[in-house]
């Protein structure tokens, strides 16, 4: 490996060594309690897919380049230098981790392997071996942020078509203004995704609740975060923050996308508006009587998959369950559940990569959970989770239907 490249990689290591990383690099006792807390290890039981196995790849680099012990007696902690084989191990570690943080819950010290893998992903970008598809998607999102005015007109035309679908569902005479955009002083700015379902269903719900809302020009998904590029991740998130501030909205509501929700709610510091998930908003409308749902309308056995970033990392556990229990008569909880729920294996950008075989194998824990419930419908509230659950369904030939929570609500909305 060339000296210049090693120099750049060392700079990344040092730049990323913030306070939490110092704790996480020094505290781990390699007790191994976290060993099988990862869904990837459950599916493919090899050291490299255990949280400690992954984190050690990066920790050994930190030992080598930022610790006196690594300089004086590297054998002591098995400190390793940058090399091509080491970077291959970094890749395997980073791109087998979904950042679900189940290991944080199961580590006696609360070590966040997801944060350590954030450094690993950043190293891969510097090394030029980050997944190209994610880097390109992040670049496209950044480009859209820089020249949003060029996109606006085309996007308005797309929205006109979607408004007709909302009109049809609500049985209204006109579709005008059903999906408002650039509405100053709106109570809510909703941030969707590229897919029509991520806009139409929430729009139906907002209109049914007679909400004063507006739609963001941007997609909530943050490919900069997935790729592991902190600068692009910041830029992509800031586009939404700036738009919300310019419109003076009180609340930003995030589509069914766990990562987008967590980034805005937990990772961007204090913001001048409230950040909610669409799930929380639906629950609020239901409690306030602003929308009505056909109670007990679904008699099939239904289970709920907690998206990791919404549940374990966002604290939204009860709201989706209360919504589902209202609609279905046979709700079945997965085991384990809530903070101990298994990740589906699609988060962290993995679902966007060409790795279907790997995701089917590492989705085994989720498959076992679904099968054990005997449910015919799996409801969840995250785009990545839905895609990955579809992959698991196909890979294992499961006889289940996978649904978005908003889809379930819209199908059973009293209009």
């Amino acid at each position, binding site marked *: 490996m060339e000296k210049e490249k090693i120099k750049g990689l060392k700079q990344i290591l040092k730049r990323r060594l913030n306070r*939490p990383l110092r704790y996480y690099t020094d505290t781990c006792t390699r007790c191994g309690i976290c*060993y099988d807390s990862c869904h990837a290890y459950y599916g493919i039981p090899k050291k490299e897919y255990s949280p400690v196995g992954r984190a*050690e790849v990066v920790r050994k680099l930190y030992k080598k380049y930022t610790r006196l012990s690594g300089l004086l007696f590297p054998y002591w902690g*098995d400190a390793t230098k940058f090399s091509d084989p080491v970077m291959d191990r970094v890749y395997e570690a980073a791109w087998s981790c979904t950042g679900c943080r189940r290991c944080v819950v*199961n580590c006696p*010290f609360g070590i966040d392997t997801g944060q350590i893998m954030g450094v690993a992903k950043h190293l891969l970008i510097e090394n030029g071996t980050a997944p190209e598809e994610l880097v390109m998607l992040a670049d496209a999102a950044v480009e859209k942020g820089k020249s949003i005015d060029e996109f606006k007109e085309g996007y308005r035309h797309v929205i006109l078509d979607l408004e007709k679908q909302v009109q049809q569902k609500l049985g209204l005479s006109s579709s005008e203004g059903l999906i408002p955009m650039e509405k100053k002083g709106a109570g809510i700015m909703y941030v969707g995704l590229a897919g029509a379902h991520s806009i139409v269903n929430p729009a139906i719900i907002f209109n049914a609740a007679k909400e004063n809302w507006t739609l963001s020009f941007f997609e909530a998904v943050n490919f900069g975060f997935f790729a592991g590029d902190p600068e692009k991740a910041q830029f992509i998130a800031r586009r939404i923050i700036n738009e919300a501030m310019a419109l003076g909205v009180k609340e930003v509501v995030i589509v069914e996308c766990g990562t987008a929700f967590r980034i805005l709610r937990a990772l961007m510091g204090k913001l001048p508006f409230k950040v909610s998930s669409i799930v929380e908003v639906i629950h609020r409308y239901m409690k306030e009587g602003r929308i009505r749902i056909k109670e007990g309308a679904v008699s099939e056995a239904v289970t709920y998959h907690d998206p990791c970033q919404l549940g374990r*990392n966002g604290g939204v556990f009860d709201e989706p369950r209360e919504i589902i229990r209202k609609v279905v008569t046979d709700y079945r909880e997965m085991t384990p559940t809530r903070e101990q729920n298994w990740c589906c294996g699609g988060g962290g950008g993995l679902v966007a990569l060409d790795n279907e075989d790997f995701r089917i194998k590492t989705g085994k824990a989720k498959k076992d959970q679904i099968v054990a419930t005997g449910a015919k419908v799996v409801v969840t509230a995250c785009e990545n989770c839905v895609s990955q659950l579809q992959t698991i369904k196909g890979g294992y030939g499961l006889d289940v239907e996978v649904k978005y929570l908003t889809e379930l609500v819209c199908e059973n909305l009293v209009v």
Partner: protein
Amino acid sequence: MWDKFFYFSMVPMVYLAVAILVGGLLFKLIMVLISKRFPGSLSVYPKRVPRPIGVAAEAFAVPAAFKKDKVFWLFIIAFHIAFLLLFIGHLELIKEFKWIQVIPHEVFLGAGAVGIVLTITVLYFLFRRFKSPWREISVPEDFLFLIFLFLTIFLGSHLHLSARYYAGGGAFDIPVESYREYLSSLIALKPVVPDGIANSPHYVLVVIHIFLANLVLMMIPFTKVVHMVFAFLSLNLKRK
């Protein structure tokens, strides 16, 4: 030659070990303080109890280990309680503390059980690492530190047990007063190795015990033992 080594281990090396331990830990804490804070929150949910209670409960009761491996948890708890008693016991070898003698006892606390528990638990931690999957995730530090710790504790335990239970008809008894004279002289920076220690048939073992303890103290800032400080900080992040 041996006299010099004995004196070096008993006096200058002790100061060196304490300096490296304190300096190393302070350096680590200073590096933490000057490092960038994380701008957001690294919380996981649910948060069932207030933060300080939650951090203390996780740090002292180690529920993650209890849930996963109850035998391992038992050894973790036994080790840490015994280690606390070991620390208190060594405080009493410096001088008499009335608050420690609330329940009157002969120095050292535990009548020898502390050393035995520590020896067994450290051996368990060491042998556990010989087995897969822990063997694969272990690095030389993990084995070497436990071996040094085992030897230190084993010798210390031997010194205590032989003195307490009159091995050799009391010939190996080094009086508590001699240890107090030695350790308090170190603290007062007027070091002496009293005759009660230097003339004991156990003097060689005392020297080796202190030599190994010095090595263990010097290793601490370079090992995972810093979890004794950082565990609270990282657990705090999880709930912040």
